[in-house]
């Protein structure tokens, strides 16, 4: 087990995993918020589009999205995000992780919106705030605070789902594992090290989000 740690750049692979996680977390939060707003908007077409996004993306396997990004979008349509394959893979993986988890973020936020009593939205509208203003000033701040626990679960899922980037050649923890297994043969040691790495990444996230969800919950 020790020789795996000294011979392979395990730390570097997990730094890569962390990069995927952070960038895709930001990306999915942005897209997810937009989709959630669409889903609660008063305009029917936007609501329909939001629902369509969530149902399609949430029910498509992430592996499929990953392979589609490189084989379909980059190679056949020609949407290369970089001439260098490594950078192209990294960027497309971040895009697809963002797009995929945005559906879950949107649903988490929508559940957060549902925790805000209808009366507040009605009060906001009746004092003359527009839809956008009432969303910004009244609904969303409370929705985020109410959705912290499910958002945390989504972040943990995202951390672990970065391993799917391996199917398009991402050099994160699971990519390193496939190299170790090829060279050393399969062993419990290698699997344990990678699994432990993910526990170290996700356990604090879970604790932090549980703590936050209790502290920031809107008392009513």
């Amino acid at each position, binding site marked *: 087990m020790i020789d795996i740690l000294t011979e392979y750049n395990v730390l570097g692979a997990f730094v890569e995993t962390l990069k995927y996680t952070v960038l895709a977390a930001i990306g999915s939060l942005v897209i997810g918020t937009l989709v959630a707003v669409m889903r609660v908007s008063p305009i029917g077409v936007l609501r329909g589009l939001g629902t369509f996004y969530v149902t399609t993306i949430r029910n498509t396997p992430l592996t499929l999205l990953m392979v589609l990004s490189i*084989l379909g979008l980059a190679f056949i349509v020609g949407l290369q995000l970089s001439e260098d394959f490594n950078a192209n893979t990294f960027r497309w993986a971040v895009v697809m992780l963002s797009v995929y988890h945005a559906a879950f973020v949107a649903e988490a936020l929508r559940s957060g919106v549902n925790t805000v009593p209808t009366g507040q939205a009605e009060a906001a509208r009746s004092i003359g705030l527009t839809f956008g203003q009432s969303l910004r000033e009244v609904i969303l701040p409370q929705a985020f605070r109410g959705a912290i626990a499910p958002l945390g679960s989504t972040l943990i899922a995202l951390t672990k789902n970065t391993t799917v980037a391996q199917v398009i050649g991402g050099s994160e923890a699971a990519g390193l594992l496939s190299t170790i297994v090829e*060279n050393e043969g399969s*062993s419990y040691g290698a699997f344990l090290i990678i699994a432990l790495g993910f526990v170290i990444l996700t356990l604090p996230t879970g604790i932090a989000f549980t703590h936050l969800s209790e502290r920031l919950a809107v008392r009513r």
Partner: protein
Amino acid sequence: MITRRRLAALSACAALAVGLAACGGSDSSTGDSASGAGLKVGIKFDQPGLGLKQGSEYKGLDVDVATYVAGKLGTPADKITWVQAPSAQRESLIETGQVDFIVATYSITDARKEKVSFAGPYLIAGQDLLVRADEAAITGPEALAGKKLCSVKGSTSAQKVKDQNPGVNLQEFATYSECMAALTSRAVDALTTDDTILAGYAAQEQYKGKVKVVGKTFSQERYGIGLKKGNVDLCTKITDAINSMIKDGDWQKAVDANLGPAGYKPGAGNPPTPDACS
């Protein structure tokens, strides 16, 4: 509402029960594998030309070698249970006794010898390049500067091509099938891995005439038959079987039938002389 909840609980129980039954079944059947009632042989299920599952049929060079060896061990073809042996699981399958031996593009290496024993080699392959049929610029590993390559993530071939050509533009996928799609859609210029695997793909109906193997190997992969570490008795029997397969011409026939359609000729050192068992 109550009925719906009950239904959900029921279906969960059913799913659990099926899972348990499946586990139990495979557990109880591992014990009697060595009794001669049949053999469990690990092969690839997704490697055209070497080990490929098509419907209920298994085809390829590895399948033919395994069938011949099993025959010499006294097991007719219909008594062989084929087990899928993906690269990452080969050692575990052998160590836990889920297979009797593995014939699955299994290169003999020192690291693997620490976990399993090998009989063979039964074939010497080498890393090569697969290019489109109209490709003229790529003539070998020395002509790769500025070219786009494709291989499988973590594979020995991918590591080697990166070591030998630092800064090479290498796209990696989970399987070679995706690399084939990238190659035929002109997104990459060459696919690199063992010449046997390349020949297997080139021989497939949908790629005939569209791709070609360059034919200049730049590594040596000695394919062996993996078995439980220290089982010298079985190793000796398998080695004898490989020797007689080479001697009576069945080896050449199997190579020609499975990899020949792509113009594959076994490289230097073939047919190989199997190592002594220890």
